[in-house]
């Protein structure tokens, strides 16, 4: 089982790397920010598999932290990078 999980880790890591390459290239910043989201899911999957394969129980807690905080980079991007587009929805609709 360990071998299988380890292979899965490698496979997902490779997918992660490919995906990262494709979105970090751009063209826009929004694409690039998606990279952190990609790691948010792929990285968590890898962590969980790794933790089970190497029997490191604390890997679950690391994954939990990652899952909790994976949104933050995107939020910072939306807040600070696009404030004049009011990307959180302020501009698109006024009060009803």
């Amino acid at each position, binding site marked *: 089982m360990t071998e299988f999980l380890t292979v899965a880790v490698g496979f997902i890591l490779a997918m992660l790397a490919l995906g990262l390459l494709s979105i970090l290239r751009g063209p826009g*910043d929004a*694409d690039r920010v998606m990279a952190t989201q990609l790691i948010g899911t792929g990285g968590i999957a890898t962590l969980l598999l790794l933790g089970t394969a190497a029997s490191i129980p604390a890997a679950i807690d690391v994954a939990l932290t990652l899952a909790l905080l994976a949104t933050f980079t995107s939020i910072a991007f939306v807040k600070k*990078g696009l404030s004049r587009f009011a990307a959180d929805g302020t501009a698109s609709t006024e009060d009803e």
Partner: protein
Amino acid sequence: MSGVTVFGLCAAAAVGLGLYGLITNPQPLRKIIAFNLLGSGVFLLFGVVGRRGAAAGMGNDPVPQALVITGVVVAFSATALAIALLLRLFQTSASVARSGRASPGDDPDQVGG
């Protein structure tokens, strides 16, 4: 032991990369990022050292781990301080520069699409 070697080499490479970035990047923010990369290489080296010292039923020597945690905190505060300085400098020098310049136009590169 070979996994340790891989990450040891990885740490050395990260140190080299960080050094190169810190030396050659003209932008202060990029220097800060390069410093963080450099720092993470050093921390990884501690991690490798600790992993090699796995003993007494522990996968990693706790002392280097503790040193790394302390180091991470210090490096993070340094980053925060440097960025605060940078933003303040940007503010003060922008207020000087802006008087001579019209408001900057929308940069189409700002968002992807």
